[in-house]
């Protein structure tokens, strides 16, 4: 069979979309792990809550009759703010009191938090599937490519790149970013030189949650539906991506997300979607056999 380059590009585009979303969520896992050495299993739920807040805010703003662009800006800001608030609160309630406890305790409280947030949204909002507003317009200049990738795919890629650039800037050049890197390297030492470690940990949770919220908004708008359970599978996949890339490493999370998304997409395209997950997780096992710390786990000395 001859090589179909058009088909390859289509699968690549679909992998890039999935990978971008995984990467956005994986960043939250990896940043938190880098600083407090904790797997925040409630992170997938923050992604779901971000999408829900956007859904509620945009419904509310539509009633007020605001123009589309203003609605998107305000609803996104509300969603990021809210998700950040949830991330902050989850850390204060479930993880801070356990910071010096054995490693398993915060893990269990993280799982508890995840279950709690799912049920909280189910009971507080709805257990039904809801249609998500189509906030990403169909761009005319992308029409020639519509059969390969949609406008929402394009927006997901662009947004992800912008968000990554902002994140890199925060970590490399701001005082908070420097303090975060210092805390990740040695928490006690950072405290000794006058860094307010509690504040830095909170900032990490807030930034991670904001990224997850952006991912939640993008994917819900892309697929057009929302449900209280969407965070679970996305969270598991993003966690896998973070481990794949080397947990604790920021470029690793992005690379891991993209590798996982591509693996799933090409497995579906060239083999069978029935084995999509089998393929993705076999890849994970293989990579971890040869690089136990993940793709960029140790090569990167900078751990944030």
């Amino acid at each position: 069979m001859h090589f179909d380059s058009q088909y390859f590009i289509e699968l690549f585009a679909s992998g890039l979309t999935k990978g971008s979303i995984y990467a956005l969520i994986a960043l939250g896992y990896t940043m938190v792990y880098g600083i407090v050495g904790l797997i925040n299993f409630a992170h997938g739920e923050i992604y779901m809550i971000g999408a829900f807040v956007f859904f509620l805010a945009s419904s509310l703003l539509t009633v007020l009759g605001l123009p589309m662009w203003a609605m998107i800006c305000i609803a996104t800001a509300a969603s990021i703010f809210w998700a950040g608030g949830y991330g902050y609160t989850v850390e204060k309630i479930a993880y801070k009191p356990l910071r010096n406890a054995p490693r398993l305790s915060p893990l269990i409280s993280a799982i508890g938090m995840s279950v709690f947030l799912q049920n909280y949204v189910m009971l507080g909002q709805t257990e039904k599937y809801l249609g998500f507003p189509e906030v990403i317009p169909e761009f005319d200049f992308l029409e020639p490519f519509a059969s390969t990738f949609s406008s929402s795919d394009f927006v997901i890629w662009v947004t992800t790149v912008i968000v990554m650039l902002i994140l890199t800037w925060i970590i490399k050049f701001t005082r908070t970013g420097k303090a975060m890197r210092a805390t990740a390297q040695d928490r006690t030492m950072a405290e000794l030189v006058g860094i307010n470690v509690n504040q830095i940990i909170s900032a990490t949770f807030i930034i991670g949650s904001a990224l997850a919220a952006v991912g939640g908004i993008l994917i819900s708008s892309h697929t057009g539906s929302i449900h209280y359970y969407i965070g679970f599978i996305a969270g598991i996949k993003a966690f896998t991506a973070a481990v794949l890339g080397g947990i604790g490493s920021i470029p690793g999370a992005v690379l891991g997300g993209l590798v996982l998304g591509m693996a799933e997409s090409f497995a579906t395209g060239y083999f069978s979607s029935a084995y999509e997950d089998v393929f993705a997780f076999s890849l994970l096992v293989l990579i971890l056999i040869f690089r136990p710390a993940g793709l960029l786990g140790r090569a990167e000395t900078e751990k944030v």
Partner: protein
Amino acid sequence: MKFPLRNSAFFMAACCLFAFAPAAASAGDTIKIGVAGAHSGQLASYGLPTLKAVQIIAEQVNAKGGIHGKKIEVLSEDDLCKPEIAVNSAKKLISDGVDAVIGHTCSGPTSAVMPLYKEKSILVISPSATTPGLTKDKEYPNFFRTVAPDDAQAQVDVDFILDTLGAKKIALLDDKGDYGKSFIHFAKEQFEKDGRAKIVLEEGITQGAVDYSAIVQKIKRSQADVVLYGGYHPEASKIVTTMRKKRMKTYFVSDDGIRVQTFIDVAKKYAEGVYASSSKDTTSNPLAIKAIEEHKKKFGSEPGEFYLNAYTAMIVLVNAIDKADSTELSAVAKALRSEVVATPMGNVSFDEVGDATGIGYAVSKVVDGKFVEQK
């Protein structure tokens, strides 16, 4: 030892009394109809409504003087939907001399007892046993049913795809769940048997995945005219949305797992033109409304599962015995096949293997945000 002995003696006497009681009644000229199914246990909610439906109609017929002057006598046997118990229930009904049986409730027990009834030439009409083989294997000329077999839904979709849409290339998709997989399994068999269309793609998707664009690209590449999907609405709405965003005009046909308003509410404009099969809508049938009213009046509650199926079974049985003026199997079976009877489930007759024509599934299409049944 004294009391138990006396008790058992008393018990035996009681048994004799009860054993002779129906025999005594049958001395009069009655038509005995057995109702066998789950009347207790976990699955009672599937079996009890059948008993109630039969009782309601028996009462009505008896109030009007019976069938050609013979009253209907209802004999009920509980089989708990367990094959081993069903065999005893069937033997009991046979020894009581039933003329026909409405039941059994579940497919397993029904398959287990059919040889017994066949040997004694007793007519059986099940309101709820859906295993395709009961009719399609053509083993039991005494078996009829007023419920669509498991593969009927797939059959309706397959016929619609081949005849109405005229599709030549089919993509089969399921959600790897029990329901979706068996639906697609039956559809595949029927496509292969028919041979008019080619299956170009067969895939199982992961439920709850973040995005389905890779599988949608694969469908596009297969150049299928139709996607037949077995599963539920959450995944279906994501797949349809992705397909339409990629400007694909491929038909999307599915099962009753997506025939809910939520599907349209979620997929919005992308749901337009999607086809889904489901049980024919009988809510506006005046006979169905009447049957439900009768249940409320007699039992003070809404009827349960398979009530209308059982009600229909009893109506066609009474009509067939009336027309045949006999309870002899071949005469009644002939009447069942030739008569078209107005029932709560529409105008019902039976084909040569015993499946009801007129009962079953229909294909609906999404038009302006609503499912509209296609003629």
